[in-house]
């Protein structure tokens, strides 16, 4: 059996890559994808924990995370399209009107 800390390290690695992606990439869609990545990392760790703990609660959690992720994707993509319409480009650096 593969010890749970292996899965957790894997999940942590994925999470970090996801965060770095969010911080580095300027394209909004890639940022969105990196967020999905981070969510997956969390899901993975939860499933791993659910196996070690021995009940299905972890997996239920993951299920609901997926539901939320789906909802988020719908709205997120809607916003991205709206954003694209207004600023003609998906560079997150351009979309900083809130600050000015």
């Amino acid at each position: 059996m593969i010890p749970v800390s292996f899965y957790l390290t894997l999940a942590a690695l994925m999470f970090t890559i996801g965060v770095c992606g969010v911080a580095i990439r300027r394209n909004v869609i890639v940022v969105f994808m990196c967020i999905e990545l981070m969510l997956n990392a969390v899901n993975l760790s939860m499933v791993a924990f659910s196996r070690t703990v021995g009940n299905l609660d972890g997996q239920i959690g993951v299920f609901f995370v997926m539901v939320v992720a789906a909802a988020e994707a719908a709205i997120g993509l809607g916003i991205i399209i709206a954003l694209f319409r207004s600023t003609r480009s998906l560079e997150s650096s351009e979309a900083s009107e809130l600050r000015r």
Partner: protein
Amino acid sequence: MMILFALLGALVIASAIGVVALRHPIHSALCLVLNLVGVAALYAMLDAHFLSAVQIIVYAGAIMVLVLFVIMLLNIKVEQPHRRGIILTLLATLAGVCFLGILAPLFYRGLRGFTDHSSKIEGTVEAFGELLFTRYLFPFEAASVLIMVAIVGAVMIGKRHQQGGSK
């Protein structure tokens, strides 16, 4: 078993890096799909069969397709590297590294105490379904409402936009 895990792990990490590193959004999207499929496989290894199927259907099948749609529809170009980005990249990687630095000892030292009774559970659809509709009924309903809201919201954003667009 271990080999499979190593393989899948490598696949997942490589695709994750691919998502971040590759310039063109389509490439990073496909890498993410690969990543998702890899994670689904990992779920299967962790006896979460239902979840791996759902993962593929929901994540890979629906969400990523939407993302692909958006990328293709908006015809997004390759991202030009921005000179100020380098500092940020360094900063981000640095933060990431120290984050891992913190977690690593935690995993190996902290979790030794866990007793591993992984034999007991299997992520079959029946067990999952039963649990879902008994103890977690309320969250399940709440989730459905959430989905409804999301749909309405997406339509609103889309529709309002069309009028805006057409005006």
